[in-house]
């Protein structure tokens, strides 16, 4: 299922999106105790590594503001930079393609694959290829796509989507992975991580040697030189971009940076934020296909520039911040919500805080109106963001849009009956609240009623289950103990009051 051809006023498309089922997915995730254990351990580890790595940088805030201003500047003149990139890359011998939407991007890659008689395509991990559903499109055309990043390969074999931007199999325990590989490869598997990694190395070597096509994403596109940079640890991107005769890279239009020298600060900050390494194992700067027939490397390089709803985000300075993201996933590891529910519960290939703002803006509020609510607005995501994206601000903006609809796009969540019902009762609730808090007499009256109710409900435990509209509220919380009298009438409040103002 693919959306029809995008016109500029329409939203984009995210493959396998079921973020509208967020309310059902979350309890499932929370009930999975093993998942929560694995996530807590994993995210804690990465967080600590990140914190240690950043302590080593003398001027972290300076570096961060540099990274931020590079991306901000790139976005402010995105059209110019894209045209410069196209001109330079074309001069270097790279074929540049433009894809307004997911369907068109898949069609371009498929066309290249078919022209080169591809039967097997090796893939380096790429979020954008997940976004456009490239694997399914290839399979439908009879081409076998093989993921080569270890974690991504594991989730592909398990027929699951990735649950983390950087560590796709973060939700899987080692034993689970061993059993999975034993089943798929039909032979006994070693128990340790090193042994399992060795198995992957061997299995995938064969694929690398045979593949006619290599598919990757891109971390940064350099307008000035028409080059692009790929960042990795495993070496699978180097293999994907070196062995097959043809290499296709798919990149969102927001990946552009104006100058070659802009790469330094971004490379310096991205791995530290992502895995806590001072630098990743490999950064590969690709500028042109091989220049002489005897050389190594692909004969043909294609680069697909994907919009898929991104240009729309530039309409507003706040939403445009979303496009600064360099996909480091620091916000996932720090987020108290992600740490409890994991990536799959978001129902989107982009999970966590960044996914909660990116997904609804790309796929439309109607498809993911609950995601902006998946946050306590604690602000930790912004604090760790290497490019200082105001994630809480965008979340609030999107919550507003989910409730009120967006007049500029005509994207009204009222089309969704669930949201409409929720909105109506919520609005009624807040109208009542405003009235009840509007005078001191009403405030005291409802305070007294509240204290009375709390006392009654606590004494009759069965009542908590039948507390009407509040029943779901008590699922995760205990009813507060009534203090017996209001704070204002208490001894402490009296002492705080300036002398002589004691109420009669």
């Amino acid at each position, binding site marked *: 299922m693919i959306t029809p051809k995008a016109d500029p006023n329409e939203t984009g498309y995210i493959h396998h999106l079921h973020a509208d089922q967020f309310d059902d997915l979350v309890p499932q995730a929370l009930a999975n105790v093993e998942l929560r254990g694995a996530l807590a351990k994993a995210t804690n580890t990465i967080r600590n590594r990140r914190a240690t790595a950043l302590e080593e940088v003398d001027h972290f805030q300076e570096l961060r503001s540099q990274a931020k201003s590079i991306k901000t*500047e790139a976005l402010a003149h995105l059209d110019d930079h894209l*045209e410069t990139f196209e001109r330079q890359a074309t001069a270097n011998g790279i074929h540049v393609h433009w894809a307004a939407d997911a369907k068109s991007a898949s069609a371009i890659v498929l066309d290249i694959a078919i022209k080169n008689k591809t039967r097997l395509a090796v893939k380096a991990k790429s979020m954008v290829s997940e976004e456009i559903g490239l694997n399914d499109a290839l399979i439908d055309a009879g081409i076998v796509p093989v993921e080569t990043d270890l974690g991504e390969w594991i989730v592909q074999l398990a027929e699951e989507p990735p649950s983390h931007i950087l560590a796709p199999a973060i939700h899987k325990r080692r034993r689970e992975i061993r059993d999975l590989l034993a089943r798929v490869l039909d032979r006994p598997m070693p128990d340790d991580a090193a042994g399992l990694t060795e198995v992957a190395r061997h299995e995938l070597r064969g694929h690398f*040697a045979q593949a006619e096509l290599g598919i990757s994403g891109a971390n940064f596109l350099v307008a000035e030189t028409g080059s692009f940079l790929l960042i990795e640890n495993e070496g*699978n991107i180097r293999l994907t971009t070196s062995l097959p005769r043809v290499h296709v890279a798919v990149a969102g239009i927001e990946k552009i940076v104006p100058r070659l020298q802009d790469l330094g600060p971004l490379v310096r900050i991205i791995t530290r934020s992502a895995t806590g390494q001072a630098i990743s194992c490999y950064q590969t700067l690709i500028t042109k296909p091989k220049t002489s027939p005897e050389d190594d490397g692909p004969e043909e390089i294609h680069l697909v520039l994907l919009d898929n709803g991104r240009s729309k985000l*530039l309409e507003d300075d706040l939403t445009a911040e979303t496009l600064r993201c360099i996909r480091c996933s620091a916000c996932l590891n720090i987020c108290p919500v992600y740490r409890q529910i994991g990536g799959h519960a978001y129902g989107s290939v982009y999970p966590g805080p960044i996914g909660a703002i990116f997904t609804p803006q790309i796929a439309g509020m109607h498809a993911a109106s609950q995601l902006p609510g998946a946050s306590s607005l604690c602000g930790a995501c912004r604090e760790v963001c290497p490019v200082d994206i105001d994630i809480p601000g965008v979340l609030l903006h999107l919550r507003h849009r989910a409730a009120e609809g967006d007049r500029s796009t005509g994207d009204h969540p009222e089309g969704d009956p669930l949201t409409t019902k929720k909105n109506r009762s919520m609005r009624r609730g807040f109208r009542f609240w405003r009235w009840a808090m509007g005078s001191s007499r009403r405030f005291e009256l409802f305070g007294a009623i509240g204290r009375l109710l709390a006392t009654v409900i606590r004494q009759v435990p069965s009542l908590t289950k039948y507390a009407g509209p509040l029943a779901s509220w008590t699922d995760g919380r205990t009813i507060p103990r009534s203090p017996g009298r209001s704070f204002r009438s208490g001894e402490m409040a009296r002492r705080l009051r300036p002398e002589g103002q004691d109420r009669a």
Partner: protein
Amino acid sequence: MINDDRSTILSAIKASLAQAASARTRGGLHGPPPSIAAPPLTNELPKSAADRRDPASTLATAGFQTALDRVQGVCHRVTSDAGAADALQAVIADLGVRRVVRSDDPLVIEILERVIGGFELLPPNADRALLLECGIGVSRATIGVVEYGTIVLSSGDMAGVSGAPTERQRLVSLLPATHVAILASTDLVETWDAALTSLRSASGDLPPTATFATGPSRTADIELELVLGVHGPKNQHVILLEHR
């Protein structure tokens, strides 16, 4: 169809940017406008005190070794070509490999000629199936980065600072389980950024591909446990020629 998408995207971007600009002048929804015009970039990057060292000094070679150590790479500092050959011979003997593949670089060939046999030496354009089986690959690093222990491997006829006109090294440095890089101490630079800048030729051209490699390949995809050697080399050796 492709051209169609091009104009669709570019005009969508222009329209969106114009709308944001007009919202900004109206003092839009989200308070004062952020400074969109970024501050001019200077070449001054956040640097550590080590940056002010003279790159060719002993401090630089020692610094490179320390940094490579941290990422589980091995640095052999030698003071003569004969010493380099000895170090290479020791690596080959230690691993007990029978096939070694080399790149085209003259210095690499020269050093390998001094290594006493016992193994089969393959040229970089050897059959791919043979390359995949090969135990050790030896190639030239065009630049070394002191701050991270990084080596730069560049391909094609623009092989950078002092490389051969066409060094075929991409597969040599990638497929074998062990990669040995030959690095001259005069090719050391302090920072990653400096290495990137020095990749450009006088006319501003870049090599077709340049890989910045720091230590052996690694993964932590299974329960975040660090494993060295995934798809790339499992061992990374650098023979640092202090006399060159």
